[in-house]
């Protein structure tokens, strides 16, 4: 589903098929805005991509759709993030030291730049980043949306809301509120869906599946607490 198809649907729903009130470009703007807002707030899109080591290169541009880092991996090992302050305390020469990267920085070099520490001393293809991302920008009519089709209707709700919000002909603030409420439901559903899984994995005392590393701390009740009848 691409922006042209969606905007035709929206214009039909607005009853403005000939663009007398809302132009096609205006609808495209709102749609893109809604697309970015939806993906950032719901974090629905997740990706894993290679960020290959280049001998002697410390900083690497993150993908343009990057929102938030989830995990970084080198040679199958997860790399912990660090801060410049921590590095300064441990190794004042961290910006010039070369070797095999064991940590990374997401500060001081710009918001969308990753610094590998130490600087890679050889080319390698085993460095991966896993991150939440925005969708591919809808710059042309041929670009399809990255989100599942059933969520596209929430982008339409956002676009409808924005059309009714703007000053001038067609403004209706009550409808703006209505469609924004419908849009918010879509964002909430995605957030809840992720939360359900994270709620499942948490063990409570009394459950039958205490995981490694999640056993009760010394001095607390045992994991197999008896059922009270």
């Amino acid at each position, binding site marked *: 589903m691409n922006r042209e198809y969606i905007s035709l649907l929206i214009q039909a729903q607005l009853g403005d098929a000939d663009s007398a009130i809302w132009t096609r470009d205006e609808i495209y703007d709102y749609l893109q805005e809604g697309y970015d807002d939806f993906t950032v707030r719901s974090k629905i899109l997740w990706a894993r991509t290679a960020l290959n080591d280049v001998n002697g290169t410390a900083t690497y541009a993150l993908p343009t759709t990057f929102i938030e880092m989830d995990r970084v991996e080198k040679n199958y090992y*997860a790399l912990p993030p660090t801060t410049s302050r921590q590095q300064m305390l441990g190794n004042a020469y961290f910006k010039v030291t070369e070797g095999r990267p064991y940590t990374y920085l997401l500060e001081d070099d710009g918001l969308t730049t990753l610094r590998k520490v130490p600087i890679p001393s050889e080319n390698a293809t085993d460095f991966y980043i896993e991150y939440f991302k925005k969708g591919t920008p809808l710059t042309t009519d041929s670009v399809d949306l990255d989100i599942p089709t059933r969520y596209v209707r929430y982008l339409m709700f956002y676009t409808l809301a924005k059309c009714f919000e703007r000053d001038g002909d067609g403004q209706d603030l009550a*409808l703006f509120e209505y469609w924004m409420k419908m849009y918010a439901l879509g964002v909430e559903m995605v957030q809840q*869906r992720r939360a359900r899984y994270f709620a499942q994995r948490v063990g409570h005392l009394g459950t039958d599946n205490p995981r490694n590393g999640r056993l009760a701390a010394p001095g607390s009740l045992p994991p197999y607490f008896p*059922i*009270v009848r």
Partner: protein
Amino acid sequence: MTSTFAELKSRVSRRLNAGSFWTDSEIGTVVNDIYWEMCEESECYETDLTLTTTTTDTYYDLEDQDPIILTPHRVWNPATSKWLAIDYVRNLDKVCGRWGEAGAEPTAWFMRGTSMFGVFPRTTAAGTLLITGSAMPDVMVAETDTPVFPIQFHSGIVDGAVSVLKALERETKTAAKLYEVYAAKRSDLSWWVKQRASRAHLPVVGSRYGEAR
């Protein structure tokens, strides 16, 4: 007793009192949209998915499967006849350093992002996993199709559809009022799904009552 797709559309049309303003197809589309919204929010539909695993993939997108699994509940490995344990990537990083490299029959599963289903270890031979969980049902197509949830919640579909169509007619007050009714029925369905089975009470630290419900 159930409400068929045809009956739901007819009830929406009658409530709109709009004659031929909305076509049967337009009403049907909105009815299905609301139906899916209720199903997704409440996770009322539960089914199995046979997932084909490969030797090269650790992650599988559940949105690309048929049916779409919303939340996996349990995973069964037919090759070992064992349930897979639920795990978490931070835990794997902690207890099993190069877990992404390992190859054997999967023993654990975990989620990444919203819909990426991960297995540990990555399988060494193509096989299948049986995932049981909440899923998206098929949309209603035939006139005799019925929603997957019980009839007492079917009026929520009608209220939701009428609300959306009234908003498109720019009858804002009616749309907003019906939205509240629809939201309440959605919430009712979600609560019913969560509480339809009564389970023995397991005491949790901080809970007030120790008696079985």
